[in-house]
């Protein structure tokens, strides 16, 4: 995407975030919106790995949960200020992702999916069973997020924080994809052999993006922990990891705005579809299948392509 298109996209997103609350009748809407925005942050990072880098992770909810638990424990047990705890948790998660990524990103396709699946499951089990530290399946209470004595409280305040963090995430992702590092990453996706021959250390490029995407997930997880005030190991379950990948694929691979749309849609749709009661899951499944059949590149790239064709026909 050109720089101008990127700036326009970012401004558009800012506008949508700013205007959306006009249609929120009560604080429940804010609550859902904050979840959507934080998951969008995870998906923007995950899309760097999947959409741009051509790798896969079925364990990213694990990094999200590690960020959440890291922040909860550092603030609750050690009295670390929340912002410092968020940064420390992100650094720790980044380190873990590096150590895990080095051996497993040599794998490709299905085997890489299996390995990352294993990572996610291990993290989930550890959070569940180390009840002395994590509170186990009963969960863990988390202190509010305070910066220099001011606490972020209430869904409205959190909405603006989450919105700002998402804009920052989109900006950083946009910077990266349109830079030497990002081109190297996309080249690895396009042809690993050619990337190597052009001087790109492909193993390093993959680990790098794996770490970045884990850090995005960790930061979102930390914020989620403080926002909800209570977390359980299930935020890092396998099901959540699959959900994250689904969001990225549905929204559109290698499209940062697609990742945002996917995350927001799949967070909001179940709420909307609640009117279908017991058919909710079936309707959701049907929507996803239809999207993949008719827009196989995902919503945002698919609609963009369709619009361009329509423009050409006219």
């Amino acid at each position, binding site marked *: 995407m050109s720089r101008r298109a990127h700036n326009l996209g970012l401004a558009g997103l800012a506008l949508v975030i700013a205007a959306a609350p006009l249609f929120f009748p009560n604080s429940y809407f804010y609550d859902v919106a904050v979840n959507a925005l934080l998951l969008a942050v995870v998906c923007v990072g995950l899309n760097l790995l999947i959409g741009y880098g051509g790798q896969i992770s079925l364990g990213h909810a694990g990094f999200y949960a590690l960020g959440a638990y890291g922040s909860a424990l550092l603030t609750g047990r050690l009295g670390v200020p929340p912002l410092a705890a968020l940064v420390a948790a992100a650094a720790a998660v980044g380190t873990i992702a590096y150590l895990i990524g080095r051996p497993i990103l040599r794998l490709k396709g299905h085997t890489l999916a299996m390995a990352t699946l294993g990572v996610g499951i291990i993290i989930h089990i550890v959070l569940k069973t180390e009840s002395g530290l994590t509170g186990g399946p009963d969960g863990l209470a988390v202190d509010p997020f305070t910066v220099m004595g001011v606490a972020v409280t209430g869904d409205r305040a959190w909405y603006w924080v989450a919105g700002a963090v998402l804009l920052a995430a989109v900006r950083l992702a946009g910077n990266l994809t349109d*830079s030497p590092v990002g081109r190297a990453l*996309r080249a690895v996706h*396009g*042809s690993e052999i050619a*990337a190597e021959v*052009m*001087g790109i*250390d492909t193993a390093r490029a993959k680990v790098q993006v794996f770490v970045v995407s884990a850090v995005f997930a960790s930061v979102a997880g930390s914020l989620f922990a403080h926002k909800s005030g209570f977390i359980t190991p299930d935020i890092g379950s396998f099901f959540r990891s699959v959900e994250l990948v689904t969001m990225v694929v549905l929204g559109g691979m290698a499209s940062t705005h697609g990742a945002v749309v996917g995350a927001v849609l799949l967070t909001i749709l179940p709420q909307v579809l609640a009117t279908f009661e017991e058919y909710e899951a079936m309707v959701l499944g049907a929507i996803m299948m239809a999207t993949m059949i008719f827009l196989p590149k995902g919503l945002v790239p698919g609609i963009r392509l369709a619009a361009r064709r329509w423009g050409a026909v006219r």
Partner: protein
Amino acid sequence: MTLLAVDGLSKEFGGVRAVDALSFTISPGTIHSIIGPNGAGKTALFNLITGLYVPSAGRVVFDDRDITGKRPYQLARLGLSRTFQNLQIFLNMTAVENVMVGHHLHLDRRFLPSLLRLPAVVRGDHRCRRHCLELMDFVGVGRYAEAEASSMPYGALKRLEIARALAAKPKLLLLDEPAAGLNATESREIDEVIQKVAASGVTVVLVEHDMKMVMGISDHILVLDSGRKLAEGSPAEVRANPEVVAAYLGADGW
């Protein structure tokens, strides 16, 4: 003077010797061609030199450095670049971005400056883009600059690969069948491009089936058969070699 020395190089695939105790040298500033029937080991040889295969035996010395067994990205840093017989284009990128990846080693590749889009990175990218557009003009695909690579025709992609390889500013450029699948006009244009590249001081090694091109532009020809050296020398010498004629070229004059 020797830029590349191949010494006793062998590669086995499950008992089949694709390259068999091969030795030759390449002097700088010349155009070398490697010819031979299909399966003679030409592409395998390229893959050995550029680090995609690890040799079973023997060694490769480039620019007075033993590069045997080094990874391709390490060799790129020493000044080796290549194109592929079966295109290896980044189809998920635009044409000019493909070439810009070729220039990767000459850009600021640190993570944080890229993430924060520091002014120096932006300036570097601007310069790089301009340079790459010139290279695209040079090989004759300038009009595709902003096109998606996936939408370009085959002949243009062949040239795009050459531009990408040149963007790396190599000392040694290996071209694997640059004229394959091109029509006569296109192939003549590629011919000119290769000569211009060589004239600019880049040493070129060529695998090619187009004999007219090979005989016309090569300073030196190496003939392979079943992974072994059958003959080498100037085009005139090779053409006069009865073994070459018998094994590969056929008696019907060319």
